[in-house]
């Protein structure tokens, strides 16, 4: 019965790390759930009391909650659309043999390595500022009234900033995928005289289906958590998403109970999204 013994041994060997990982996950989660059931305002200590689902009721009926959910979804979908469509086009362009191709590729990928707070500050003060920004200067130089981005179109402004950051990621993944396209297939299509559009539609796009789902999965996880761009540009009122709302409850209202309830709601929603995404991707990867 050597196999059973080794199996037991194996289980024992991994047990410590599993236990640590489990505790690592469950302790903060359990504490958050515990706090979410209390009336606990940081500015009113000593008056904590158990209130059951009260915090959840308040969070879920808050008009700001629906606004935040809407903003979260708009942000995720808009950035996904921009980065996948733009990323595919950029990847096709970068796949061509041009002079200095390596440098161009490096430059295109660079935004991905800029920290979100830094990129938000640069966009806010140097591009979108209604008086001293580059966009304002461009619009003034053709005689138009400059747009005050963060007052007139705050969500669009945030989408532009976040998309700028994530477009390179999509480009990178899609470019490697395009480069792995079978050379023989390409030659065969060329010899058959396939027009470029049909070549793209029938050969490149199906080939990209898997990397695109990977991009969707990874970006969705990160885009649901966008915070720095919204916080730094001060657009939390009209363009705040779910993480911002939790921040607002926790650090502006100092309402630990309400913020914890918000955090749990966000975790549940993220899990629902992840459930569908992983099923979708699983199907795609199996087929």
């Amino acid at each position, binding site marked *: 019965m050597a196999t059973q013994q080794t199996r037991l041994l194996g289980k024992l060997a991994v047990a410590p790390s599993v236990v640590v990982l489990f505790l690592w996950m469950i302790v903060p989660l359990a504490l958050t759930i515990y706090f979410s059931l209390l*009336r606990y*305002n*940081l*500015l*009113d*200590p000593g008056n904590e009391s158990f209130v059951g689902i*009260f915090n959840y009721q*308040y969070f879920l009926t*808050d*008009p*700001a909650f629906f606004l935040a959910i809407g903003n979260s979804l708009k942000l995720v979908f808009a950035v996904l659309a921009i980065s996948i469509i733009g990323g595919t086009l950029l990847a096709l362009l970068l796949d061509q043999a041009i002079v200095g191709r390596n440098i161009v590729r490096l430059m295109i990928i660079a935004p991905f390595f800029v920290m979100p707070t830094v990129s938000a500050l640069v966009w806010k003060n140097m591009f979108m500022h*209604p008086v001293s920004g580059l966009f304002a200067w461009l619009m003034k130089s053709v005689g138009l009234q400059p747009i*005050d981005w*963060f*007052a*007139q179109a705050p969500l669009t402004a945030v989408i532009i900033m976040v998309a700028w950051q994530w477009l390179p990621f999509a480009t990178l993944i899609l470019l490697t995928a395009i480069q792995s396209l079978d050379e023989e297939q390409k030659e065969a299509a060329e010899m058959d005289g396939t027009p470029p559009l049909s070549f793209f539609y029938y050969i490149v796009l199906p080939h990209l289906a898997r990397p695109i789902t990977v991009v969707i999965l990874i970006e969705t996880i990160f885009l649901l958590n966008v915070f720095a761009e919204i916080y730094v540009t001060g657009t939390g*009122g*009209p363009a705040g998403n779910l993480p911002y709302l939790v921040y*607002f*409850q926790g*650090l*502006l*209202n*100092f*309402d630990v109970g*309400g913020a914890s309830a918000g955090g749990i709601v966000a975790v549940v929603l993220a899990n629902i999204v992840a459930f569908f995404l992983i099923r979708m991707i699983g199907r795609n990867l199996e087929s």
Partner: protein
Amino acid sequence: MKAMLTGVLGAFALAALSTTTLADTKLTIATVNNGDMVRMQKLTDDFTKTNPDISLEWVTLEENVLRQKVTTDIATKGGQFDVMTIGTYEAPIWAKKGWLVPLDSLGADYDVDDLLPAIRGGLSMNGKLFAAPFYGESSMVMYRTDLMEKAGLKMPDAPSWEFVADAARKMTDKASETYGICLRGKAGWGENMAFLSATANSFGARWFDENWKPQFDQPEWKNTLTFYLKLMQDAGPPGASSNGFNENLALFNSGKCGMWIDATVAASFVTNPKDSKVADKVGFALAPDNGLGKRGNWLWAWSLAVPASSQKAEAAQKFVSWATSKHYIELVAAKEGWANVPPGTRTSLYKNPEYLKAAPFAQMTLDSINSADPTKPTVKPVPYVGVQFVAIPEFQGIGTTVGQIFSAALAGEKTADDALAEAQTATTREMTKAGYIK
């Protein structure tokens, strides 16, 4: 965030290790990054010279970040800071919680009775001072004397809202980018809501009635908001919904505003020829009223307080006493000139002929501060203290939410009625949740 926190803690630990050998007591002071506070940091040699056993460490932060840091620190009894810079909003709340050390050993020559009564009242509880004012401010009307003359009007010392609105409309000439009045519109409890709450007081409105029921459904608030929106539409600059203190200062200094109602500290900026194009054409008047007995001016004082969690309260009080003393004012005057001393805290400053000569706005500042009463801010009775804020812990959140709603109304996205209804619902929700409304 976590990595940053450990980094900061590590830095503190290191700093603590490296300075213990130099001095016996190290005070960590949290302060706000505005001009007067930064100036104080440069002058601390004067303090450490007479107190060689005390060393100072500064944590200088932007207003909102400072507020978050010190609030979480004091609420969790973190004990990270020995001296905190707080405003008249925090002082009464924290004093009531027992989070602040009463300042009773400020020294024999401190002269507490010299502090302006309105400011002192806002920082005291049961007759005990809990925070020492570093500088104080109210709000007043700053106007262009040349434009006023051109409009054929004469600004009284104590104008009514009716006069101000009429003058603003007459001074406006949109073709030459001259706007009759510039007012705050940027959302925030310390931005547009500071102005609007103070203005509402003069219209007879109040945030809450005696039972903490929000009052946005009352006619007084409707009058306030419709008056403000209409005035800004007729005589305000474009894009006013994103203008706060700094934006309006820039507009006024470049000659685009006929009138500006804002903090009294702005007076020294708009009359400084280095920054202002209109420095020699500025007049001052009290904030307007509606004949109801309350003016639309606020009261604020950045103050130094010692948290109860500090282990070095005695040394901390020594520092607070130095920074808010008459001696410090004289020190600044000697080094930087009388116009740059921190204003609005001491009666003696407003009797000093040298200061009155250097600061033409001094008398109006003093009158504005004296006419604000944080303990009785409104025409009708209220259960709270605070002129342009409500001194309850929940106000930061509520004020910011309502500020966003009113800012959207100014941007034209909502009507006044919708905005008020929304503000009423949001405030009622928060107050019910916090347990004020049973």
